[in-house]
């Protein structure tokens, strides 16, 4: 029966060569009667199954995906299936955020001798997919353009006044330069009063241009890997310091090469929120901050706004306003609030409130306007492949050059997947997006699932091992998915 006849669905199976493929063979040799919807792809080990295989199949129209490998403790390569278990469990938890029913994906263990078990697994999984019906097609889902408009309340006081310790910070940077640092990354005033820009300070005069305030939005950790092997410094906010820590933890920079300057952060602003308060195209003349109030003078008029209205979302829920690791910490640390009851940013909260199909429609509506510039990747401190991103290769061709929603979303899934357990939540991907596409929700979904399953947060400890780079023989937080 052909797929097109409508009775059969498209189910893709990734089977480990040593156990499950053998199990399927055993079932076949025994002439076990089983559904024929499954298309099998043989892989050396379930540990070879890149979660992107599964995502690519599902994004491009598979109705179901099954991964099967050797039972734990039975892996031909000792530990491949332990790694697979962690990755695939995380993937299953991730799927709902892009509107894919997690029941459409399953992973299980079947050994080479378990012909009967294989038959049961295939039958049960196929029945489950048939009960769900064909997967919704991206072409058929209505795009939606609504977005979370609500502002989340800050769990800490936000401020935008002049930082009293700034002169001290400048002095500390000057001293470090005098002691032989090649340069120090910081911020200076940008092309208008509400823009700051990164600066690599090498002279005392340049240090005098260093600013600290609500416009220091950029995460300067992004520049560190390119200076590897050179002695430089970096000025960090709390969130930026997590990026530095993660780079150190992954050995992408060395501790002795980088000198970290920290200061207590009182929050940064979202430029689109400020601009939304001004008439379109108005010329910004100046900007002053006092307490939690920002006054922007534009077109000869004053516009007052509070940090509560214009702060970036991440700053509202920030629990690490001070550098988590620093060599020089200047001024009084900002009070660290307790973790919020709900750490989700508006993007994820909004997605959680939608049905699966509505979530697909949401991503369709958002990704339509993506221009595929990949500024999200450029601004990400953890995107360390830089010139060698897998999405740029033609072989394997993860993404095509087509400008369809699926292709553009798949690029985002590559980004999110490669950041699983590494993303420190700086939201630079979203800030850098010229089209304001809320891509951070994908990373936050991975982040919260990693927190839930592995109780791990990235960027806090240089000695920590990221959860996807290790395993436990018994995983207390992962339950078996038995299909038989």
């Amino acid at each position, binding site marked *: 029966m052909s797929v097109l006849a409508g009775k059969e669905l498209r189910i893709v199976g990734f089977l480990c060569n040593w156990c499950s493929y053998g199990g399927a063979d055993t079932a076949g040799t025994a002439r076990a009667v089983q559904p024929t919807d499954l298309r099998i792809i043989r892989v050396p080990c379930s540990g070879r199954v890149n979660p992107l295989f599964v995502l690519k199949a599902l994004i491009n129209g598979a109705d179901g995906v099954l991964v099967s490998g050797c039972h734990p403790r039975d892996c031909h390569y000792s530990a491949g299936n332990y790694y697979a278990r962690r990755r695939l469990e995380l993937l299953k938890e991730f799927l709902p955020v892009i509107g894919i029913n997690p029941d459409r994906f399953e992973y299980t263990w079947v050994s080479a001798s378990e012909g009967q078990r294989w038959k049961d697994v295939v039958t049960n999984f196929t029945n489950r997919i048939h009960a769900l019906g064909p997967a919704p097609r991206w072409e058929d889902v209505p795009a939606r*353009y609504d*977005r979370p408009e609500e502002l989340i309340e800050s769990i800490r006081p936000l401020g935008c006044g002049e930082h009293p310790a700034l002169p001290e910070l400048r002095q500390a940077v000057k001293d470090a330069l005098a002691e032989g640092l090649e340069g120090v990354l910081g911020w200076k005033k*940008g*092309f*208008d009063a509400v*823009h*700051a*820009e*990164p*600066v*690599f300070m090498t002279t005392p005069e340049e240090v005098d241009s260093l600013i600290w305030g609500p416009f220091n939005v*950029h995460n300067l950790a*992004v*520049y560190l890997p390119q200076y590897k092997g050179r002695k430089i410094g970096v000025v960090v906010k709390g969130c930026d310091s997590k990026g530095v820590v993660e780079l150190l933890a992954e050995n992408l920079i060395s501790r002795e090469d980088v000198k970290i300057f920290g200061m207590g952060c009182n929050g940064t602003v979202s430029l*689109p929120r400020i*601009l*939304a308060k001004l008439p*379109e*195209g*108005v*010329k*910004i003349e100046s900007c002053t901050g006092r307490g939690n109030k920002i006054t922007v003078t534009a*077109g000869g008029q004053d516009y007052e706004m509070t940090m509560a209205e214009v702060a970036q979302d991440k700053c509202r829920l920030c629990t690490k306003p001070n550098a988590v690791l620093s060599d020089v910490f200047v001024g009084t640390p900002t009070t660290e609030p307790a973790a919020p009851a709900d750490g989700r940013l508006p993007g994820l909260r909004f997605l959680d409130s939608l049905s699966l199909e509505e979530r697909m429609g949401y991503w369709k*509506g*958002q990704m339509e*306007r993506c*221009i*595929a*510039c*990949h*500024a999200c*990747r*450029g*601004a990400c401190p953890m995107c360390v492949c*830089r*010139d060698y991103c897998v999405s*740029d*290769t*033609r*072989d394997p061709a993860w993404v*095509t*050059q*087509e*400008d369809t929603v699926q292709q553009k979303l798949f690029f985002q899934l590559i980004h999110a997947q490669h950041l699983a357990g590494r993303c420190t939540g700086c939201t*630079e991907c979203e*800030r*850098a997006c*010229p*089209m*304001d*596409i*809320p891509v951070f929700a994908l990373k936050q979904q991975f982040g919260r699932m990693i927190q839930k399953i592995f109780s791990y947060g990235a960027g806090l400890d240089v000695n920590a091992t990221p959860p996807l780079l290790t395993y436990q023989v018994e995983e207390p937080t992962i339950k078996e998915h038995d299909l038989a």
Partner: protein
Amino acid sequence: MSSLLFATPKDLTSWLAKLASDHRVLAPRQEGPSVVYRPRTAEQLASDDIDALLRRATASPKQAMLPQCETLMTFKSVKDAEDPSKLTTTLENPCVAEPTVLFGCRPCDARGFVVLDRPYLEGKFKDPYYGARREATVIVTQACPSAFSSCFCNWVGSHPSDKEGSDILFTAVEGGFVLEVVTEKGQALLEGADFADASDRAADVEAVHEAAAATLPSPSTLTDVPAKVAARFTDIAFWEKETVKCLSCGACTYLCPTCQCFTITDEGSQLDGRRLRSWDSCMTPLFTLETSGHNPRPTKAERMRNRISHKFSFYPERYDGFFSCVGCGRCVVSCPVSLDIRHMVKAAVEGVVLDAGKSGEPAEVPASEKAEEKAPVEEVKAPAEVAVPEAPTAVPTEPVEAVPAESVEAAAAEVVPVEPVEAAASAAAPAQATPASRTQKSAGRTTSRSSSKSKAKKR
């Protein structure tokens, strides 16, 4: 053909809605904080708030002529039943240029199409895809009511009510809009529109235009920009310093109304597939990566040098002093690290002295040769073409020379070799004067043929 017509906001949206019945009407739409050009239906246009239609788009409207991705052709090969080594290949060109109205772009955007026209439509090879769309599109431009902080069109020879590239220019005045017909295409579009005559509002329009011009920064005082930017070519330390904060992300090139480079890839299988043309960016390392692994522009400094030089030196050298930058400022305002092209060009130009054929870089013999050749050329041509050819600012792009799209016989290769069309070698092109650039040029040629990403780019 400078008849003036008056339309109330209601008249204007009804007219657009009427046009939507037999045209693809592209108009700005608010999506989140971004404003995006979308094909709009008659119902949407009729019910749209006029202010929403007048907002400046976040990305330039160049996609109307040069889509982010387009299918140049589809190919299908069928094996002969008798002799499977024989293939019958059919090629189809799916490009249909439907009649289109591009509504609400700004004068800088419209001028961007004039910049694109030169490489795509002039010379030996004309791009039929671009040409067909250009032909089928009527551009209805809104004169800017005021300048953004990042605007600098007056630095590159334009102004907020520039008609160049537009078919109709409309200006918001008290009570509605005054439409000025610029071309015959515009005239034809307005037939049957039934707008009132507005000859008596000419003074109002003039006042709005002057008020808008007054909101721009003062015109730049830079001179000999192309030659001076070219003279910076070998000063790699300068470019390294300027690009310290660049993330090499390429957002600038995709937002730019004049960035014109593309790549060509085949998708599908060898027997059944599509040849696609999609935007490419000179800010990415893959753009120049060769199959051998050699990359003539391995760092962001060299890539930015190329981008700036292309916009302010190579392009004006080749096309009568016309900068390949329209001063829209999108690259400034949307850059994740606020890199400012105005600052960069200014810095590149300042400090370079071009006297009697000696460039400011005494060590660079090739640069001075080039400067020598250029300075006079620039002086003759620039004043005629560009009002004040001084200020540098621009959104640069790598120009892609028109690719002979017709040469599509061989369809089966997975990687499509596209013959780059060599620019009609302008003797003044800086690249040819410098040994360094010469290397780059020939290297680029190799790349187009065989890069694993199969890039077709010019030079």
